């Protein structure tokens, strides 16, 4: 492979609905990535499959230069640990598409929000999920995303407590340096899916609205202070495209993934434990 040629992306077994939105994303980066067959290219793993962690191991062992896991569902801890070890020992970047915590507009301003975290009283996040995106017994993906978002700003997720959990949603709380954290999700077929997050302190308040995966709708992130509201740059890019570019850049050695696989696995474990899915 040379720097000037696109990296090859090979899809493993995957639901048609899922592959479609990734093909749309790939079509928007033809200079970087192209679908094809190559064991040393990037392997796409469908996280909805119960065997997804084992498939990551197989891809790494077969010589893949990178792996993208879409919507990882619940999987045995031992399998996840094995996948993390395999990726680490071969130095293969494994990316996971997360709609909120991987969002570029969020990441660009996360440091600023982090410096104000100590002033916050409320962190209130809710993800609204399309019924078609619910797989497995638990809604792990949204919670992993919310944990990643929280830790990016607060440095920790605190001690997570399950307040409510069902097949259709959850409410998880914690306390991070005096800030009341609530992370919840609900399944709805109403459309307008995505994530909402309010960060509220007396001097500053943020309102964040992350669109659903798939469409290239921008996240709307507004910071409110006594001078009024200021909105972060609107980036018309889908979560899938963002993730593919980040993975491409990590494989090429241009930059690191915003969320490395070992850290993702840790959040995945935390989410599994609190939702009673492990």
């Amino acid at each position, binding site marked *: 492979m040379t720097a000037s040629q696109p990296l090859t992306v090979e899809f493993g077994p995957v639901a048609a609905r899922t592959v479609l939105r990734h093909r749309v994303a790939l079509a928007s980066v033809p200079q970087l990535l192209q679908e094809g067959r190559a064991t040393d290219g990037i392997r796409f793993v469908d996280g909805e499959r119960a065997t997804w962690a084992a498939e990551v191991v197989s891809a790494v062992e077969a010589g893949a230069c990178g792996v993208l896991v879409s919507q990882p569902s619940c999987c045995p801890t031992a399998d996840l640990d094995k996948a993390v070890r395999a990726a680490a020992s071969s130095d293969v970047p494994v990316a996971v598409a997360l709609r909120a915590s991987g969002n570029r507009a969020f990441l660009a301003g996360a440091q600023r929000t982090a410096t104000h975290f100590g002033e916050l*009283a*409320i962190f*209130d996040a*809710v993800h*609204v999920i399309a*019924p078609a995106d619910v797989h497995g017994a638990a809604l792990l993906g949204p919670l992993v995303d919310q944990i990643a978002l929280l830790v990016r700003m607060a440095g920790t997720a605190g001690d997570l*407590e399950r*307040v*409510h959990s*069902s097949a*259709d*949603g959850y*409410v998880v*709380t914690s306390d991070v340096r005096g800030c*009341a954290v*609530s992370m*919840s999700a*609900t*399944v*709805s*077929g*109403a*459309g*307008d899916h995505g994530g*909402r997050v*309010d960060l*509220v*302190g*007396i*001097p*500053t*308040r943020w*309102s964040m609205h992350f669109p659903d995966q798939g469409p290239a709708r921008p996240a709307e992130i507004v910071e*409110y*202070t*006594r001078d*009024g*509201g200021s909105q972060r740059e609107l980036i018309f890019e889908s979560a899938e495209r963002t993730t593919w570019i980040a993975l491409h850049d990590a494989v090429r050695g241009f930059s690191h993934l915003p969320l490395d696989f070992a850290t993702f696995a840790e959040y995945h474990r935390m989410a599994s434990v609190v939702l009673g899915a492990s």
Partner: protein
Amino acid sequence: MNRIGVGIIGAGAATQAIHLPALAALGDRLQPVHIADPDQGVGEQVAARVRARWSADAQAVIDDQAVDIVAICSPDWVHADQVEAACRAGKKAVLCEKPLAKTEADATRIAEASTNSGVPVIVGTMHRYDPAFVAARSAWQGFGSRRVFVRSAIYLPDNNEMTSLATNQAGSTITPGAGPAPDETPEATAEALRNSVLGLAIHNLPLIRTLIPGPVDVLEARLMRPYGYSITIGDGLRIARLAALMPGRWDPSWTLEAWDDRQHLEVRFPPSYVLAGSSAAALTTQNGSRSWRFRESGYETQWRHVADVAAGQASPDVSVHEAVADLRYAIAIADGAARTVLERTS
């Protein structure tokens, strides 16, 4: 058309910033004729502004034959006695500011007084009358019947910011949480949490009750300083997250959202005090969105309704029994939240 005489008990911020401007917005139909407030400086000044009589004693307003409607805008803890007295006097209608009362016993007393006297009692939870909310609510299919997730988020600046836009206030505006840091004992925290539910959450709770009829349990609750809460309630199937904080140094935001398996309701209310029109409400289904917004605020719509009720042209949209059920719902949540705090610290 005959003017309907309005007597107002309590001449503070709610009266000056909300009720007098709302009455003015309705033109000649309603006429403030008598205002009571034990604070002579405030009471006299406010009454003079609308050419009404002033009395120190609330009973003088209730006994006044020119008063058809009694609006109770006094501190919360005297509401029940004053509503009862106005009912006993056989007024045409009573508008009582929220909360109607602060205890179950007082709520029962009010329901009995209204039923026995036949005097309609309407509670000043203006969002319940907000025309955009009402329109969106009636478009929502199957209220209270399914799994639902509700998110109520109220983030407000200092009350002074809004009252100063709504009136030149005689006396001062009290902003919850703006005073010195309160006592932090578990009992004081529990009481502050209870008060924040009955003071602020109470606006959205009647709306939430139409989605989650109850009984509900308080699943977790925390007091926010200076003033606010973070509470989760649920009935096993349906869940509501309630968050509030004030006084912030930013623009206000007051939202109520609900999702069930096929609908999303989103209501963005204007802040209290100002007559800023209705909320912006939208209902989204798989087939797209419908949205509503009207010129008139919930305050004005509510007063128009009170006038219709007093004139015998309408019966209350929310009966006193419904209002008392709303209050019981709120009291159960306030008590449950307070208990959660005490249990956590014991």
